[in-house]
């Protein structure tokens, strides 16, 4: 009885008792969710255009952020470092296309997936040689991102919102909107979607695989940079960031591998739900740290009902 009470009654009573706290939990979840969504978006873009499950997205986040900070440390002004970093990401996209994607065109999915793990390892080694392993500070102020926090007194308590989190939420919304427009309204966007369906056919109508891939990987690089700035502003930049890739995978599962909307809604849903679950159920009842698996289990359950995720493309299954 106590047990049932602890599961079904107490958490809600707690929520009602301290609405300011609940709001804070939701906000924290939202901010986390936006960041998950951003990483997931990188995956989605690449998957959509090439059916490659790009495991390297996580390390690309680290790489982009480190390049930005590293350039700044070398004395490049922040606002110049930003475009330079973009240039580096472009070079990276071109290099990946040349060295990995082109020779592996038309190979089975799993081979390409493995290749992206290869890329991940390579970039880890390469990055550590260049940037060293220590934790670096994100150049938040230099990029003119506000760093104060706003505290609102509500419901007899307070909710505090970091301006940089707010900035990253707004920034992400803009980024996603731009991306959606790009995908649905432009020729290149259409070509990206076409490529996901059938490489050969895309080639045959004159879509240049290499160009599109470079474009897509570059966009993924831009998203990685955005993620890196947002996340780095919270906790510094180091190779430990790489593990956040794992947080994006359940988002993909939940939202659907090829859906931009799915990545966003999935990201937000997971961000908020996992935080609520951890705070109200995980910590009191299960020894905490349920965030390690909650998102996965949630996504798994959703998949049982919709095997292609909430917004994924229906699997056309015909004989």
């Amino acid at each position: 009885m106590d047990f049932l009470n602890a599961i079904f009654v107490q958490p809600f009573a707690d929520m009602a008792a301290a609405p300011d706290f609940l709001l804070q939990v939701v906000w924290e979840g939202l901010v986390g969710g936006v960041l998950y969504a951003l990483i997931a978006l990188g995956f989605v873009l690449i998957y959509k255009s090439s059916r490659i499950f790009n495991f390297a997205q996580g390390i690309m986040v680290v790489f982009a952020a480190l390049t930005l900070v590293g350039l700044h440390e070398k004395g490049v002004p922040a606002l110049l470092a930003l475009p330079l970093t973009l240039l580096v990401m472009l070079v990276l996209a071109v290099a990946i296309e040349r060295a990995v994607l082109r020779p592996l065109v038309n190979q089975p999915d799993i081979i390409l997936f493995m290749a992206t793990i290869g890329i991940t390892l390579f970039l880890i080694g390469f990055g550590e040689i260049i940037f060293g392993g220590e934790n670096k500070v994100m150049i938040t102020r230099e990029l003119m991102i506000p760093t104060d926090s706003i505290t609102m007194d509500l419901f007899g308590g307070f909710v505090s919102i970091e301006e940089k989190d707010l900035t990253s939420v707004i920034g992400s919304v803009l980024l996603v909107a731009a991306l959606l427009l790009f995908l649905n309204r432009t020729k290149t966007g259409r070509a990206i979607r076409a490529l996901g369906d059938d490489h050969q056919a895309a080639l045959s109508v004159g879509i240049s695989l290499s160009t599109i891939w470079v474009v897509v990987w570059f966009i993924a690089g831009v998203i990685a940079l955005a993620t890196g700035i947002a996340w780095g502003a919270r906790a510094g930049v180091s190779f430990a960031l790489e593990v956040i890739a794992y947080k994006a995978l359940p988002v993909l599962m939940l939202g659907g591998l090829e859906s931009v909307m799915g990545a966003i809604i999935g990201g937000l849903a997971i961000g908020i739900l996992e935080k609520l679950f951890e705070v109200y159920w995980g910590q009191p009842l299960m020894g905490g740290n349920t965030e390690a698996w909650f998102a996965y289990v949630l996504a798994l359950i959703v998949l049982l009902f919709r095997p292609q995720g909430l917004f994924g493309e229906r699997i056309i299954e015909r004989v």
Partner: protein
Amino acid sequence: APASAQEDSIYIPNLSYRTGPFAATGTPLMNGQRDYITLLNERDGGLNGTKLVYDECETGYNTEKGVECYERTKENAVVTQPWSTGITLQVLPKSNVDEIPILAPGYGFSPMANGKVFQWAFNPPSSYWDGASMILKHISEGNLDNLNGKKIALLHLDHPYGKEPIPLLEVLAEKHGFTLLPIPVGLTEMQNQSAQWLQIRRERPDFVLMWGWGAMNAGAVTEAAKTRYPMDQFIGIWWSGHDGDLKLIGEEGKGYRSISWSVPMPDSQLLQDVREYVVEPGKSLIENESELDSVFYQRGLMISAILVEAIRAAQEEFDAQAPDATQVRWGLENLNMDEARLEELGAAGMLVPFKTSCADHTGHGGAWMLEWDGEKFVKVSDLITPDREAIEPLEEQEAQAYAEANAPWPINEECNM
């Protein structure tokens, strides 16, 4: 490990980690260790004329690599420095068989203090349980009963290292009437601890103790600032007191404290020598000079100093130019790092004085409290010592349990407490 084969040198392997998620904290430690040995070789031509061969094997804080490194380096080694609680746990059972002493200063399994049971393992000058005891002593102003009715959170890495203090804290909580609230941080959550800090905000503990490592430390202090948790109620173990981590937060981290059995002394003779013989000739791996002043770099120096003193003791006792592992073990059991000796080393005040024995492999030298002043850590307390009476029974019990679980496990009955 070919260089070790010569008769006239002493092979000191180190299972280092300058890569992986914990590289940021590992690197300055390894640099300090390495530079101390280099200093001896450069300044004194070795130890009493015998060259010291310092060799790193990279583990990336990965237990599996660590074991591989142990196997790779053990052949001529006089010591093994596993550098992670996980690797220590793996190597510990082998030490009786391979007969190589494990030196794990300030880390590893706390009951290793019991030299009767753990004949080959050493964790001077203070164990994690000592650390926990000292922090409690400090925050209770000397009397643990002052904590009665208080709530103390333990924010810890969800890893053997982070869980290490829990058994002792549980016992003490029971005894002194405070509530213990362990809050684990998973490896993937290190950078995003908002859930943990929400819990802290909700539970409003009177103190937060931290057993954090790597990126977790910076993440925690950032969140603490964000949550407006009073910094002066937030105290870390010695591995959570890294300048690099706090620099990320700067001013906002002001008031955060970390207990430490070493204190940086940038003006000491030792540091001057390091600058002269190691850094200036370009023989150090440090990235910039400011690293020399950091807590972890100087702690690295002290760790090597402890080891070298043990080897020196072995040289003298056995009259051996290059003592073997068993002899070095004797040296580690008979360390006497008193203030006079530290003074001689040019390191006065840099390390807590301590003394080991056959039965006591830790020395329990105690520690000081350091506080972040916005730019660097400064010492803010006198020497604190652990409440051994509270710890010893638990140590004894856990050591026995370990021996039983791993039977047949040899016990050195010749030691007396």
